[in-house]
């Protein structure tokens, strides 16, 4: 296959010389692949900033009392960690990086429907990131509300809440425009013959995500504007002292922020659905069920936000109703997991790094999902609400889920993106370190939470120290593994051996074109008339 590729004369998107030179060739690019890489570089840089803040918190918690920082600094750290990780890393994450790079290729298109809008989305994203980072350094100090900006405290604290919420507002615009672009791309630009049920499952997951981005994000935008208006003009939407209702803020905030969890995780589910059939060399089991379950997760995910508010003073009727709806969302999630396992059954399994990350994803996501059922039930939720248990659950879903899927995706698609291979042995070792480190870091927090350790607390009773120390050790192991993994990937992308067009024997369209692809992706428009996972 590699010889065939070498014979074909083409200029890869990385070597293409356009109107602009140097860094401007990137900043002003309209190529969806370059825009995907721009997002990736920004997001990885921000991820390591957020991870450093997380590690500082872990060091602080290694012993009771003050260790390396004051309590107010700790408040600022967990807020900044949350804002960076949620709004700038995991919400855009897989969707903007791999969605931008691979969605047009997977559906046989030359680019997204609106390339200029796509470029503008990236610019807006960068402006939002600058505003968010600036909010940490301006005169009044970093916001200390947590990433949730709960009212009424957020209406009165003297820290830089307005700048931080304005940043989230701007980032939301980027998200909406990207979602709109992807929806139109999928509706209008599929290759001839490609019906919806011929699309790869990653494209399906991006489609479901895009709808959620488009419909949910305006709600947080309006909510944050209301908060800003309340702070500036004392209007009284949320502050009870002014006749407002703090629960209204929580409702509006979670109407967006729970679907946002699915914006984070749906593309991850799509990535796993790509990796598993490729490394089992087997047609995916239950293609339509997996495709439709993405839409079901997106749809039902809109209606379950109240489980974040079980102890807020919400009515009992609303509590049982939200509990019921929360349990429903487990069904489409489980459909995916069972179908993945069925795909593996009697498959020709190849334990390469992308597949190892997919396996880790299933393990960690299942732990995150089953502990989510405890939080979905009102009776158990009130016992562990606002404890370290919630922190553990959330990180198992988002880091163990989205994070490990991201690692899997980059190991899966890096040969296509850069045209070079990375070192498999190093990648496997890094996977092992990451997996052990992750579980050491977060599993003790389930136990600490059940024992009563509150989340976001700077200090704690001595009885919690053993768990905190184990967790901190896990944090250092995980960060070491990630640094090693990134080193290996960067080395591979720059100096690795030349990658063939189809190193994993995949069947989807990205593996049928050279590595790295040309600017227009395809020399001839592909015609697709069958299931994308046709392993014969």
């Amino acid at each position: 296959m590699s010889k065939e590729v070498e014979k074909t004369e083409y200029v890869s998107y990385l070597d293409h010389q356009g109107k602009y030179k140097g860094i401007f060739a990137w900043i002003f690019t309209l190529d969806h692949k370059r825009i995907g890489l721009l997002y990736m570089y920004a997001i990885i840089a921000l991820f390591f900033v957020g991870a450093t803040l997380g590690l500082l918190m872990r060091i602080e918690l290694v012993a009771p009392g003050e260790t390396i920082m004051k309590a107010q600094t700790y408040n600022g750290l967990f807020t900044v960690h949350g804002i960076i990780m949620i709004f700038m890393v995991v919400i855009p994450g897989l969707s903007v990086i791999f969605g931008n790079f691979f969605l047009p290729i997977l559906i046989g298109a030359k680019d997204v429907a609106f390339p200029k809008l796509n470029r503008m989305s990236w610019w807006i994203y960068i402006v939002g990131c600058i505003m968010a980072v600036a909010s940490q350094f301006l005169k009044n100090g970093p916001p200390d509300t947590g990433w949730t900006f709960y009212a009424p405290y957020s209406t009165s604290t003297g820290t830089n809440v307005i700048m931080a919420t304005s940043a989230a507002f701007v980032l939301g615009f980027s998200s909406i425009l990207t979602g709109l672009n992807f929806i139109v791309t999928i509706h209008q630009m599929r290759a001839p013959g490609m019906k919806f049920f011929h699309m790869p499952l990653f494209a399906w997951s991006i489609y479901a995500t895009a709808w959620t981005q488009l419909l949910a994000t305006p709600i947080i935008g309006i909510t944050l504007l209301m908060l800003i208006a309340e702070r500036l003009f004392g209007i009284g939407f949320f502050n009870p002292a002014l006749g407002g209702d703090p629960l209204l803020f929580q409702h509006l905030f979670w109407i967006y922020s729970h679907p946002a969890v699915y914006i984070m995780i749906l593309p991850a589910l799509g990535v796993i659905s790509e990796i598993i059939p490729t490394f089992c060399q087997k047609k995916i089991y239950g293609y339509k069920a997996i495709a439709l379950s993405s839409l079901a997760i997106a749809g039902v995910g809109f209606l379950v936000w109240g489980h974040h508010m079980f102890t807020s003073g919400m009515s009992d009727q609303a509590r049982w109703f939200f509990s019921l709806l929360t349990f429903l969302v487990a069904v489409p999630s489980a459909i995916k997991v069972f179908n993945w396992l069925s795909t593996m059954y009697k498959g020709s399994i190849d334990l390469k790094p992308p597949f190892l990350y997919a396996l880790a994803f299933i393990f960690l996501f299942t732990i995150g999902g089953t502990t989510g059922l405890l939080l979905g039930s009102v009776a158990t939720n009130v016992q562990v609400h606002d404890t370290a248990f919630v922190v553990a659950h959330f990180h198992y879903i988002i880091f163990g889920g989205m994070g490990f899927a991201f690692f899997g995706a980059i190991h899966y698609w890096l040969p296509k993106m850069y045209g070079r291979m990375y070192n498999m042995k190093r990648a496997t070792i890094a996977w092992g370190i990451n997996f052990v480190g992750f579980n050491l870091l977060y599993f003790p927090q389930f136990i600490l939470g059940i024992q009563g350790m509150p989340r976001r607390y700077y200090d704690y009773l001595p009885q919690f120290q053993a768990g905190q120390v184990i967790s901190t050790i896990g944090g250092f192991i995980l960060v070491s593994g990630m640094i090693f993994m990134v080193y290996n990937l960067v080395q591979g992308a720059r100096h690795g051996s030349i990658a063939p067009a189809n190193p994993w024997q995949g069947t989807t369209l990205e593996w049928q074109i050279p590595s790295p692809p040309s600017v227009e992706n395809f020399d001839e428009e592909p015609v697709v008339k069958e299931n994308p996972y046709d392993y014969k």
Partner: protein
Amino acid sequence: MANNTTHTTEYKVLARVLLVLMFLTFLTISVTSYKLAAFSVTIALLIAGIKGFMVLTYFMHLKYESLLLRILVAMIFVLYAVIVLITFIDYAYR
């Protein structure tokens, strides 16, 4: 494809829609003078929904689009209605 076709809506139709929209705006303001408790929100949202529907249908040419697109837009309306309804399960019983 539907979006490659040019559609012309008569000015007469657009003017009628505009008049209806203005009347509904007047109605939205008028009903605030009545004490309808929780129903005041319901009525305001209902009127706003009708106005949004008319703008989408006539000014944004949704009536000329494919059935799939019309169904998708209708489902968005239904979704928002369900979200508001569920929120009011809390407010009605708190």
